[in-house]
Each structure stands twice: as structure tokens, then as C-alpha cells.
């Protein structure tokens, strides 16, 4: 699925690859100079082809005290809007707190959890939280609640609680791994 020139208006910014392979390999690495953020007016065609890329996102910051979870959501929306795909979103460190269904944001602030859930549902995104980081921060699904005999489970069902291996597996499987630090 290669973008037609007519589609450019909907794709204001896209990573344009100038190598023949999408994924950098040991021998032909994608150097920073081979990537350019290009913004072309409608009707102007690219001098190189475009391909759909698979992204995975690592989200590390606390939803309430950092911009990380919000930035990641904006990036995810832009990624999908640009015709690319998101393989998995992995919440790590304080980022796991986004999965806590007990959050009550004030009415005049955006409901990040709600926005992630809606966006994930719309695009069938896999939302995952790291189990080790989540346990430490009191973010427990029913299995973990029972295992550690705690009072209440609080992971919103749209999130799966997974091991760190899922973070690495996603990075291996994707064209791009993007991290949103805290």
C-alpha cells in the first residue's frame, strides 16, 4: 500500500525511507541521514517510495506527573493516521499507572485512560502493562490480586498484564521502537 500523491494531504508528516529495505539490517543500517521528516504539499509526489511500518511504543512516565502517556497517545494517533500500524503499546515504569481503573481525573482535564481505551478499541491495539512494574505500584489484575491476596483488582480490562519479554519481543518484531520516558 503505497501512498498516492493525492493522499499526501492526509499524511502531513511521514517517515520517508530512502533505503531499499524498511528494516535496517546489520549490513545496511539506516543512518539518521536516511530518514527525513518530510512535509509535502498536496499534489507533490515523493521521490522515493513509502511503506507501512510497524511501530511499538514503550510508555514509561506517570500519567499524572509526566507528559509521557499523553505524548504517546498523540504519537499513536498520528502513526495510525499516517497509515502505519502499532504492534503493541507496552507500559513500563510509572507508565503502568495508566491501567488503574480507579483514576478520577477532574472534569477539566483530559481523561487519558478513557482516550487510550477508545483509541485502542477503535484500532484493535494491544495495550500491555509490565507485570513486575505493575505489582510494585499496586496495579493488579484479578489473577495477581488473588495470587498475592490483596484487597482489590484495579486493572482496566482493556490492558493485559504481561512479562517484560513482551517488550523485547515487540521491539524485535517491529520496524520502529519508540520510547516515551517519564
Amino acid at each position, binding site marked *: 500500500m503505497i501512498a498516492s500523491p493525492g493522499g499526501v494531504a492526509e499524511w502531513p508528516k511521514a517517515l520517508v525511507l530512502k533505503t531499499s529495505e524498511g528494516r535496517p539490517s546489520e549490513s545496511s543500517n539506516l543512518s539518521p541521514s536516511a530518514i527525513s521528516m518530510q512535509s509535502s504539499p498536496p499534489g507533490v509526489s515523493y521521490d522515493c517510495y513509502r511503506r507501512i511500518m510497524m511501530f511499538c511504543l514503550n510508555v514509561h512516565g506517570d500519567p499524572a506527573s509526566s507528559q509521557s502517556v499523553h505524548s504517546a497517545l498523540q504519537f499513536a494517533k498520528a502513526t495510525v493516521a499516517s497509515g502505519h500500524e502499532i504492534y503493541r503499546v507496552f507500559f513500563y515504569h510509572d507508565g503502568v499507572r495508566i491501567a488503574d481503573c480507579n483514576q478520577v481525573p477532574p472534569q477539566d482535564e483530559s481523561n487519558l485512560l478513557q482516550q487510550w481505551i477508545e483509541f485502542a478499541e477503535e484500532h484493535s491495539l494491544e495495550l500491555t502493562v509490565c*507485570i*513486575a512494574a505493575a*505489582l510494585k505500584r499496586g496495579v493488579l489484575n484479578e489473577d495477581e490480586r*488473588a*495470587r*498475592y*491476596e490483596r484487597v482489590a483488582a484495579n486493572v482496566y480490562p482493556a490492558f493485559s498484564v504481561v*512479562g*517484560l*519479554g513482551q517488550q523485547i519481543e515487540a521491539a524485535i518484531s517491529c520496524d520502529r521502537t519508540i520510547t516515551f520516558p517519564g
Partner: protein
Amino acid sequence: MTRVTIQLDKDGFLVHLTDWNEVTAAELAAAQNIELTEAHWELIHLVRRFYSQFEVSPAMRPLVKQVREQLGEDKANSIYLMQLFPGSPAKLLAKIAGLPRPTNCL
């Protein structure tokens, strides 16, 4: 002999790592239907040394590497380890040796 109650989580890992001693280890092993032999003990002590040195419970690969270096090539394979600690040797060894769960085994 005094009776002591050791707190375990639902998976049988120690809640308090300081509760570990060789008697505890034998009990933890018995709960997994393992009777500890010399071959088991040398591995238990090996992973405990690993943890005290690195503060990380070893995953399978570094475990095999340490076994190779300390106990010899003939024991440095997963078949040998699985005979002694069936299923997931790194996880089971951590449990019986009184270490935290290996991170990727959570």
C-alpha cells in the same frame, strides 16, 4: 525443636527472603516433590552465590553459564537441570533457594 511458620505466597515463593535456611529449602523442595540430594544442593548454593553477587535471580542462560564455570561442562545443560528441577529450572531453583522470582518469569 521449635515450630516456625514460614509465610509463602500462592506460588510457594518465600514472602520474606530472610526466612530461608537449609531446613526451609528442604521443606520448599518437598512441597514440589523433590528430595534434595548433593546434586541439588550444589545448584542451590550456586544460585544463592549468584544472587548475593548480582542481586538478580539468574535466568536459564546465565544459570547454565555459571554451572559450566563452577560445576563443569557435563552439568551445564538444561536437561541435567530439568532432571533435578523439573519444568522451569531457573524458576524452581529460585523458589527453593529462597530468591525472588526471576524477572522474566513473573
